[in-house]
Each structure stands twice: as C-alpha cells, then as structure tokens.
C-alpha cells in the first residue's frame, strides 16, 4: 500500500534527504521544510521504500501538498 506524506503547513523545501528507491525506516527524515525561520524535519510514519519524491529543494509547498510517496 502506498503512503502519501503531506506538508503540514506553507513552507519552503530546504532539503530533500531521500531519493526515489531508498529504503527507509519509520522515523527517518524525508525532507526538511523551512517556515517562519524554523527548520521542520518531515519524518516517515512508515517503513518502506521511497516511490517518489514530489518536491525539489527551493520549492514552495502549501498545506496538504504531497511531499513524497512511500511504498
């Protein structure tokens, strides 16, 4: 089953930590967002493999936007 990871807030994508194909554990950092002078690591809630990273560094994301898909 695929799991969509979404942005919790309007933010800039500061760092993309994982790439498609990476194996990840629950709690691993996928991307690091930046909003209001704060870095916000987005962690995976599941273990699996990164199917897709939907954002690139420097992108602006809105609340609810998909950041990555985990299989």
């Amino acid at each position, binding site marked *: 089953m695929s799991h969509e990871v979404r942005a*919790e*807030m*309007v933010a800039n994508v500061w760092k993309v930590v994982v790439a498609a194909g990476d194996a990840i554990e629950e709690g691993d950092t996928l991307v690091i967002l930046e909003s209001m002078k704060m870095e916000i690591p987005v962690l995976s809630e599941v273990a699996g493999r990164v199917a897709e990273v939907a954002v690139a560094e420097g992108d602006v994301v809105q609340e609810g936007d998909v950041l990555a898909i985990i299989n």
Partner: protein
Amino acid sequence: MIESLLVANRGEIARRVVRTARRLGVRTVAVYSEADVGALHVVEADEAVLIGPGAPAQSYLDGAAVLAAARSTGAVAIHPGYGFLSESASFARSVLDAGLVWVGPDPSSIERLGDKINARNLMADAGVPVADGTREPVADAEVAAREAERIGYPVMVKASAGGGGIGMSVAHDEGELRAAFVTARSRAERFFNDPAILLERYVARARHVEVQILGLADGRVVTLGDRDCSVQRRHQKVAEETPSPGVGEALRTRMLAAAVRAGETVDYRGAGTVECLVDETAQDFVFLEMNTRLQVEHPVTEAVSGIDLVEQQLLIASGDPVSFDPGAVRLTGHALELRVYAEDPIRFLPGPGLITEWIEPSGPGVRVDSGYRAGDTVTPFYDPLLAKLVVWGADRTQALERARTAVDGFQVQGPRCNLPFFDELLADPEFVSGRYDTGLIGRMRR
C-alpha cells in the same frame, strides 16, 4: 533630536518605533517587502518604500536597499529594531559612512560583542563571571570532544556568531557531542556565515535572566532592572516577566553591577541587554551574551519603569540627555509579556495563513504590541511573532490575574496560534509559584 527616522524592520517592532518617533515629532519612513504590501507598519509611517521581494535576504536584510530608501526619502537616521540588520556591524558602519545617524551602539561594540566567544573572553577579563567554556573557536569534532571532557558534561554547543537559539544544542556524552557539533556547524555556516563553534558548561536547572542597560551620551552606563526569560521552547523565549521571581536582592545588586561593568568594558552607547544564566538555589549567575539592540521583551521594563526605551534610544543617538533622572529610577509593580506566535500550542510548529479574526484585549495594565490585523496574511518568510501581550499589575499575583483575563479576550482565527498555551501556562503550578527554570515547557509537555 533627529528630524526624521527610517525604521529598517517590519511587524510589531516597526510600528512600536514609529509610535514613539511620531509622539516626538520625528518624521517616519517605513521599508517593506512585497510580502508586506499594505501591512500596518507600512500604512502607519509617514512614508514607505518597497525594498524587495518577501525573502528577507532580498529586502529587510539588504543593507544597500535600505540605505537607498533612506537616501530617496531624506531620512537622517536609521533604527534597525531587532533581528534583521540590527546586529550587523558592517551595516551600522555603512549607515555612519553614508552620513546618517545609527540608532544603536558603535559598530565596534557590536563587533566585539556579536561574537559570543569574544564577548565571553572580554567579560571574563573584565571580572564578569562566565561559565567554563572554550576561549577559542572549536576547530573540529576531535577538539570538541577533548574540550568537553575538560569542561565536563553536559555541555552546550553554540554558534559563536549565532542568535535566536539557532544552532544550539546540549550534549550529555561524547556521542551526542559529535552529532551536536556537526549540526551546530552546518547551522552556523548557513544562518550566520561563520562556522566558529563554542562549547560552554551547561547548567540544567537554570533561569535565564537579563539586565537592561542604557549607555548614555555622556558615557555613563545605567541599568533598568532585570527580566526573567526562562519560559522557552527550542531555546527561544515565549514569556518574560520583571522582576525575576528567582533573583533575591543581593544577587540582583551583583547582576546589575556586572551589567554596568559589561557595558563600560565596550564603551556601550544606547540600549543593550546583558543576558545571564542564574542558579536560583545558589543565588549565583554567569554572563551568557550581550544583545546590542532593543530587545523583543523591552515593554515589560517600560511597564515597571514608566520609561519609553525607544525615546531614550533616539535621544542618545541624537547626542542628547535621556528624558529621566538616571539617579532616581523607580521600578514599580510586576509585568509579564506573552509572545503570541503563529504556531500550534502543543508542538509549537508554525502555521502561516490568512487572519480571519483578530480582536485585541484591553483594560487596566494591558498593552498589546501587534503587527497584524484581520485580513492580513501571515507569510512563511518571517518569524512567527504576531503580537506581544504585555500586562502590568501592582504585584505578581495581580499581573497573572490580569494576564488570564487578557488572554481570554485575545481572539485570533486563521493561522495557527499559541494563545491556548498561555491559558495553560498561567494555570501551571510551577509557573504560578514563580520557582521555574528553562526546563518548564519541557516538563509541561512530557
């Protein structure tokens, strides 16, 4: 007194500076970014100049754009507020080189104090107590491990050029230290463009207490009491109060004297803040750092002293005497500041958005310094401070009671908002007792 003033900032602090300038008959110029079109600080100034896009580096941090705005409007002085360019010695110097008045200390004072390692060494050499730490920038993880062993765990790892809690973390053993060192250095390079790292003995159950100083035009350094800033999340302040409930009279006398010595050491002019860590049980303190600008929480000092700190800054920058008798300062009652942030009250994560409702409280002893109104959009470009709720009472009990009422009367809808946290804080037995330290929020959220 200067004839005109450009305020190189935004939000509540820009409005607050304009308010005093206007009262004193000084013409005001605002600068703003594309993200702040129509903002309160823009419409309230006599003139306003668009200086660039929303990203701070292209607007509020662009010194050349700010100077060009001063030139085009004929402003004779620049007030930097806090954050942004306020602690940039090179910007201060370029203001002076342009023949303008800089509302702040001499650039050399900013330079000597802005670097935390240098500031610690200066203070230690002047006889001001400092925590055990490194006198030189820590070059690599090996040196860090060796120094931490000497100082003794836990240690605080900090960016020497840092501020706002960014790049700071505590290490309890060598593993944590090595990780903290790498993180701190990458933050230091990214945010402050300076990789120098400092280690300092970490005091776990400490209070964070600071002293307001004013370096007068005639060279004297005076103090205006203390502020307790121990209510923190992520090493950033959320609420402050004065006087500190954890500082006895004997300790207060020593801290104020040390703050004067700190200011005199660098020939300080204008408003500044000497931050200290206090061990409440031992009634002892160490110097932490000095902020060479107006502090966010300055209104609590104004509330108990009746002194307008921005007015004093403008007078000192103009070379004039201050408006009060420095030998007869009387601090009365108790004041609190609650920082209303666009962040959730549980995890304290920011959440920008359109403000659909905004109602500020009022009443005896209540002051609100805000940067927003209904219809404004809080953007992700800037820090999450929406407003400062400042409450004064004849004593701490009355101040807390008035604060509870004021929090209930403050309505913000739209972005995330931490107001519900203050209901919790003002009912928390540890906070209410006054015997708390910087670990308070951590314990509330355990």
